[in-house]
């Protein structure tokens, strides 16, 4: 396995090879080389199956981390490739020519995170949403509850009591100050 880690490091500057468990590892590459890395992994390294693609919003360090999960069915092992992109201007090379379903994931990420994949088919079309006016909703700074409260009417009449403060009110109101 470390063969591949070395190979990837040598060819594409991949780093941080980490064995998550015996049949799953992760590695990090630069976003700019993602298409080359994926092509290499698919064609040379045996990782022919793209399980899924997704992104993680690492808002604290101002980056989206893309995760590409690949699987080598013959060797029965998986690999998650990570690539960071700038959160302010997220643009990544599309891999829709490498795998036939990648464009859907890219369309999803475009809608959910606002990550652009230039050249990916129908990438700017709405995917699951319709008439959405808010920000990309999977970003960490989008507050789902606040949006829901502001948008969708709730059935009134709900009120709850915190046991501790309720007991203070009832049992020792003088300590309220």
């Amino acid at each position: 396995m470390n063969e591949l880690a070395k190979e990837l490091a040598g060819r594409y500057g991949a780093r941080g090879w980490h064995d998550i468990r015996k049949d799953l590892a992760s590695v990090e590459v630069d976003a700019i080389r993602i298409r080359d890395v994926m092509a290499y992994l698919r064609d040379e390294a045996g990782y022919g199956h793209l399980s899924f693609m997704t992104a993680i919003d690492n808002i604290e360090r101002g980056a989206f981390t893309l995760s590409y999960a690949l699987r080598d069915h013959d060797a029965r092992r998986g690999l998650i490739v990570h690539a960071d992109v700038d959160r302010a201007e997220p643009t990544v090379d599309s891999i829709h020519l490498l795998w036939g379903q990648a464009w859907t994931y890219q369309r999803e990420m475009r809608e959910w995170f606002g990550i652009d994949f230039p050249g990916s088919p129908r990438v700017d079309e709405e995917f699951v949403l319709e008439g959405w006016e808010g920000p990309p909703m999977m970003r960490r700074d989008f507050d789902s509850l606040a949006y829901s409260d502001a948008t969708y009417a709730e059935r009134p009449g709900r009120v709850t009591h915190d046991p501790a403060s309720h007991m203070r009110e009832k049992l020792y109101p003088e300590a309220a100050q």
Partner: protein
Amino acid sequence: MRREKQRVIPPAERATPDLDSGKYLVMWQGPQHPGITGNMSLRLVAEGDTVVDCETHVGYLHRGFEKLMERRLYMQNFPLVCRIAVPEPDFNEYCYAAALEELAGIVIPEKAVWLRTLSLEMMRLASFLMWIGGQAGAFGHGTIAQWSVTMRDYVLDLFEELTGGRIYHMYIIPGGVRGDVPAGFYKRVLETMAVVEKNLDDIELVMFHNAVFKMRAEGLGYIPRDWVDHYGITGPNARAAGVARDLRKDSGYLAYPRLDFQPIVGTESDAYERARLRLGEMYQAIDLIRQIVDMAPKDGPFRERLPNPLYWRIPAGETYVSAECTRGEYGFYVVSDGSDKPRRVAVRGPSYTHAVSVMERLVRGVNIADVAGLMVSLHTYPPEIER
């Protein structure tokens, strides 16, 4: 004898038909349409009776699970995840629980391993039974659906007894399972399996030795073998194309390595072959359930104690856990940042590629009347696409 295959449209760039030419009819199949699985829609462009272009539109069931999970405690997500795929909730429960256990370094007791396997195999059977009704129904054979859904209901009765729920079992909890088997349960499992098996024999006779069904299904929706990797096709759709991949064998999770079974593989890769293969997997599930009943430990704990769920923190890390559901590779990708809520959970449903990319490709050149049957033969559930 190889069957005549549906012509496969070459993977050239999708040529958008000139809709203003008056040659084409644009119509929507779904979301309000009995010929669609679940709540989704296809925008079909037809020339005469033949579909020339198709776009799948999803999102009607989008509830934002992945966002909601980031708002909830690890344990609070446990009732949530099973709602992602309604007809087959247990795989969500298993993948989620297994991912957390892996991240938190929890080893579940032996009995829980077996009960989980039992629950997953019963789920596969129930889901297939529902599917076979849909497949027959999509070609207009309602009788099969009338039978098989009832058979599924018998399996759900078992679930109800074991887990306390009919549809959403919420049984596979992180750390193990939620309860031991009730007294006499295994006996009833075997009885139900006998009933289901007998009915499956009837279905096999009526549905698969049926001239009309063969006329409709043979050659429909041919998936060439080289699409399997290109589109990430998994499960029976891939196995029908001759690709012997089964995560139960390949990953060997839960008790599967100790069970005796072989992946069923087909050759023809059309709707009929896929249906046939799934029928075989139903028999296989019944066989596996019998093995599990036989081999599962009768005593011992069924759950590992977890920390207080209100403050359960999981060490930072990430993992991807997948399992072989009825449709293929079902997986949960969980990223933890060390807090009490997941940083990111991504769900990989096999329908994601089957119902969108593969469907859009396959449906071109198909008669409008076959669209429903084709869709069902890919066995797709929209909620796992849009989550």
